[in-house]
């Protein structure tokens, strides 16, 4: 079902540029994420992390550059964007669950309307996805009846159910009360263990140290530095990275 071919990076970003009006948000971003790799993106607020992530499923339209998913182009003419987006899961800071639908309804919606699965098949797949995030028993609950952590896990299940090749996470835990963060991170760890390719914007440093394969530091719309968590956290090369990490720990 997946068009991903071995030998292709799961996600490739080449020479990506993006401005809002005259304000240059992203400058010459180059990034390649391997199959099953988890890449963490750090950087000060306003450095363009969300915009970069949103370009990776074209919620934001890049001004120039190329993006490929499993070797298949996401940008350029003739791309079936809705088909490509099913290969890219996205998890938002504010969950963005559909409040008028139950947890199950949230997960089945795209399965039924986009992938055109019959109701029973869609519901079986949705229950399996909810089970993976530990919320099989909450299928009939509406978002308003769930805690923030549970809502975010439903949102992860909604993305997972489409069996994407890559998942994008934009500060998935920063809207959560501290005691709810752990459950969401545990689910993300589990998703990674099953081989998912993940690009994660987050400031959960401890989680990044434990789970990330690579850490990228962005500032002013550029990738300033990248390396393993040990390199970037232990011995940052760039002054800007050191300053940022110092502030975070300070």
């Amino acid at each position, binding site marked *: 079902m997946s068009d991903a071919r071995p030998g292709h990076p799961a996600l490739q970003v080449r020479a990506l540029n993006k401005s809002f009006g005259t304000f240059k948000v992203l400058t010459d971003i180059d990034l390649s994420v391997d199959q099953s790799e988890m890449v963490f993106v750090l950087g000060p607020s306003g450095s363009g992390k969300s915009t970069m992530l949103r370009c990776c499923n074209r919620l934001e339209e890049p001004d120039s550059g190329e993006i490929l998913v499993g070797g298949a182009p996401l940008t350029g003419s003739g791309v079936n964007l*809705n088909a490509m987006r099913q290969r890219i899961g996205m998890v938002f800071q*504010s969950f963005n669950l559909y409040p008028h639908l139950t947890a199950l309804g949230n997960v089945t919606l795209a399965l039924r*309307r986009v992938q055109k699965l019959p109701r029973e098949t869609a519901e079986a797949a949705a229950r399996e996805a909810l089970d993976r995030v530990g919320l099989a028993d909450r299928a009939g609950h509406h978002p308003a009846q769930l805690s923030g952590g549970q809502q975010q896990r439903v949102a992860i299940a909604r993305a997972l159910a489409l069996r994407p090749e890559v998942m994008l996470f934009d500060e998935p835990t920063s809207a959560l009360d501290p005691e709810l963060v752990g459950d969401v991170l545990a689910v993300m760890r589990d998703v990674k263990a099953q081989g998912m390719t993940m690009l994660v914007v987050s400031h959960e440093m401890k989680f990044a140290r434990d789970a990330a394969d690579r850490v990228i530091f962005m500032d002013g719309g550029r990738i300033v530095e990248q390396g393993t968590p040990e390199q970037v956290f232990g011995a940052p090369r760039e002054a800007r990275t050191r300053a940022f990490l110092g502030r975070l720990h300070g």
Partner: protein
Amino acid sequence: MDAILAQFFNLEIMAKALPLVLKGLGVTLLICAVVIPLGLAGGLLAALGSVSRNRALRWASIGFVDFFRALPPLVLLIFIYAGLPFAGLRLSPFAAVTIAFFLNNSAYFAEILRAGLLSVPRGQGEAARSTGMSATQTLAWVTLPQAVRNVLPDLLSNAVEIVKLTSLASVVSLGEMLHAAGLVRSITYNASPLMLAAGLYLVLLWPLIRVIGRFERRIAS
């Protein structure tokens, strides 16, 4: 006292008027059954246009809405029924009423639905699009259900206004309820048929208004 009862609450005359007034009620309901769905559809299109990213479409939609909200519906109806024949277009009373009320109510429904669409957070549509849903699917399954729910009392209030608006159709001699009652009044020289029609409007609309009040309180809480 007896004179007032005889003039306004003459049961005998009411009984005589009843068949005609009920037939008028049927016409009233028929107009509503045509104008409410048409107005909702036209209103949705205009609302979508008014929040569109296309500037020309946006201005056209906003112009349409402003124009028909500013124009008194009675003026519009008389223009369509009695003015257009001068341009060679002669419409039946029913067609004139339908077109006039469609235009008027599209504008009102558009304004309500526009507010509803704007009340749905951007992230909702983005989440739907990120799962591969098309713009139309996103509207149908995610944005519009929430938009409608957020403005349901206003939509229902406007539907009540439409039922009342139908009484204007009497000026083009369309036999809706008020016209029927007026007809019997002019034959009998008695106001009782009008009281009968007023009573029927109340019976028709009062439950709706109760329901709207309940929705409003539920949304407020």
